[in-house]
């Protein structure tokens, strides 16, 4: 219990008169950096629970929300390191589509004799890593703004996917990864557990390793980071490569879960992922937010959209709602001091 530090005659601030445990919980809450997001989630759940007369909270619906938010969460965790470091990686559409096509080509299917089995995991990570490394090099070595470089790469990879895919939707005959992606463990979707574990692992890397500290340093202020001796080029390539690898894994899971390889798969992923990252509290200006923010943002967005469906909100305005949410999230999280002029 603290005492007032001010001189005689000043009242003890209300905050400091709260009991110890409450203060400690409040401080922990603030330290985790996800206080606002958990509150948002609670509000969203509350509104929809009331609006649907409790149907929203039925275990089958909660399962759906957890199940549908897992893969977007992994995509969001993949996207956020580049944003925290002050850039952005918009190549996710292309990477996802390309990996979908490779999966259709290499896993057991009716059109050719390939049967890579579980090695496809390594292939997906490798393709993602290469794509990410190219993005990083374009940004770090050629000094092309990451927004443009990654967007361009995304379209290049998408074009490659369409070219290779030849408009054939390939049903996947090897369903092992697909079954894994849709299984439940004690009633909880396995993929949600995997996503949570993955998020925790990435968060650990961010909190406890040099890689993580450097990432925040670059995001905070690049000039100072360089002066402190951080090799910006290597770090940026590393972050984009990491993003690519994560996109690779998430795309593999999504393709197997859909049971069919389509070259269009990546097209609907970018907007929800960016929204998830922004809603989770990762500032687009960089330096703030971690894996748990990104994953929580994906959960909030999925919970929101599920609630809109359950409440029979017109599909015509569902997309608009997502747009409003994105704008509000970015408005609340960006650091306007970093932007000289709002473009």
């Amino acid at each position, binding site marked *: 219990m603290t005492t007032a530090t001010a001189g005689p005659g000043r009242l003890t601030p209300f905050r400091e008169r709260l009991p110890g445990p409450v203060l400690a919980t409040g401080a922990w809450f603030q330290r985790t950096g996800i206080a606002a997001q958990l509150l948002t989630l609670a509000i969203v759940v509350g509104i929809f629970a009331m609006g649907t007369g409790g*149907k929203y909270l*039925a275990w*089958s*619906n909660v*399962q*759906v929300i957890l*199940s*549908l938010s897992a893969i977007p969460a992994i995509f969001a965790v993949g996207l956020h390191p580049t944003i925290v470091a002050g850039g952005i990686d918009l190549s996710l559409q292309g990477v996802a*589509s390309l990996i979908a096509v490779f999966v259709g080509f290499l896993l057991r299917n009716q059109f050719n004799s390939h049967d890579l089995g579980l090695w496809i995991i390594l292939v997906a990570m490798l393709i993602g890593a290469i794509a990410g490394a190219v993005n990083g090099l374009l940004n770090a070595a050629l000094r092309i703004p990451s927004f443009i470089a990654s967007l361009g790469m995304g379209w290049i990879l998408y074009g490659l*996917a*369409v*070219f290779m*895919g*030849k*408009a*054939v*939707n390939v*049903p996947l005959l090897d369903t092992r990864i697909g079954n894994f992606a*849709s299984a439940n463990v004690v009633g909880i979707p396995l993929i949600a557990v995997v996503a949570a574990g993955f998020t925790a692992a990435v968060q650990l890397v961010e909190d406890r390793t040099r890689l993580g500290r450097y990432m925040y340093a670059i995001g905070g202020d690049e000039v100072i980071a360089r002066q402190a001796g951080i090799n910006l080029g290597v770090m940026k390539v590393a972050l984009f490569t990491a993003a690519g690898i994560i996109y690779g894994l998430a795309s593999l899971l*999504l393709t197997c*879960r*859909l*049971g*069919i390889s*389509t*070259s*269009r*798969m990546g*097209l*609907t*992923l970018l907007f929800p992922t960016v929204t998830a990252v922004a809603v989770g509290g990762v500032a687009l200006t960089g330096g703030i937010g971690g894996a748990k923010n990104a994953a929580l943002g994906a959960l909030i967005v999925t919970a929101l*959209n*599920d609630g809109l*469906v*359950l409440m*029979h909100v017109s*599909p*015509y305005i569902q997309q608009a709602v997502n747009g409003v949410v994105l704008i509000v999230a970015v408005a609340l999280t960006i650091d306007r001091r970093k932007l000289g002029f709002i473009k």
Partner: protein
Amino acid sequence: MRRFAWSMLLPALGLILSVTPRLADAAGKTTLVVMIRGLDNPYHANYAVGAKELGKKLGLPVDVLTSEANSQKQFADLKAEIAKTGGNMVVSCDPNEAPDVVPIAKMLEAAGAYWVNWWNKPPDVKVASYPHWVSHVQFDAVGQGYYNAKELFKTFKTPNQGKIIAIQGMLANNAAIGRFQGLQKALKENPGVQLLQWESAEWDTTKAYNATKALLAAHPDVDGVWCANDNMAMGAIQALKEAGLAGKVLVTGTDGNPEAFDAIKAGYMVSTEFQDSRYQAQFGLTMALAAKEGKLDVKSLPSKYRSWMIPGVKVNRDNVDKFVDEYIKSMPKYDLSNFFANWAGEAP
């Protein structure tokens, strides 16, 4: 002075290069142009397949313009194509969205290029207002939605008594609007069937998967899922598989993608309607060519031949094997001699 000369060199070169093909093409072969949404969608990609085969047969160059679901790109690409060919082209177009048809019509009218439009056109736009617009053709989308709905209702435990959910396509597409109207018509005729809720998945497999999962959570006791196309039906089937309902709760689509026939044979899907986009491309281009060469007098065509419908091929569990042999394992030879032989009704 030297810098000025160099800086003028590039634009001059560009000017020369841009004029040369125009002169060459204006005197030369007519280019066959197909405008489609993208090569990533089997239905649209087959427009290109049909066009290329026709180009090979006639010895004419073929250009494929893809909008990538972006109307602005569609217009820009068309402008570039007109500049490249000098207007010496014919077009078979499947516009990204219905309102796009007006700017396209104006551009092609100004370029003097004959063209045929597929699917998307606002009902108040009249083909006769544009002399170079030979025809607007669509499949009977209402009929497609209606046929698939009726097939679906037959599969319920008590036929024509049950509950369904619906997954619609892009809400501004004539195909989506028409097919949903067909579903409504079937629902009106069968008051024992109730449509619980619908969502739009914009023709996309992933979106359909997500939407179906959410809808199944909201309505766990549905008897069938009506989807406006096969891509979305695939996503819906996957969601049903995860809920343990595939094969018990059946799905319908439209388009006639190869994986749809596999799904019908496997018992997950009831029916689809095949639209042969290879035929559509060849038909559209041949008709526009006939107009360009004076063999078809566009001005004298009655309005029912300017905006009309053709039938697709209805495929369900009874005829799927025969159909796959005839249409999928090879490209059939199309009879393009009488354009109106398959006329199935006037379109708005």
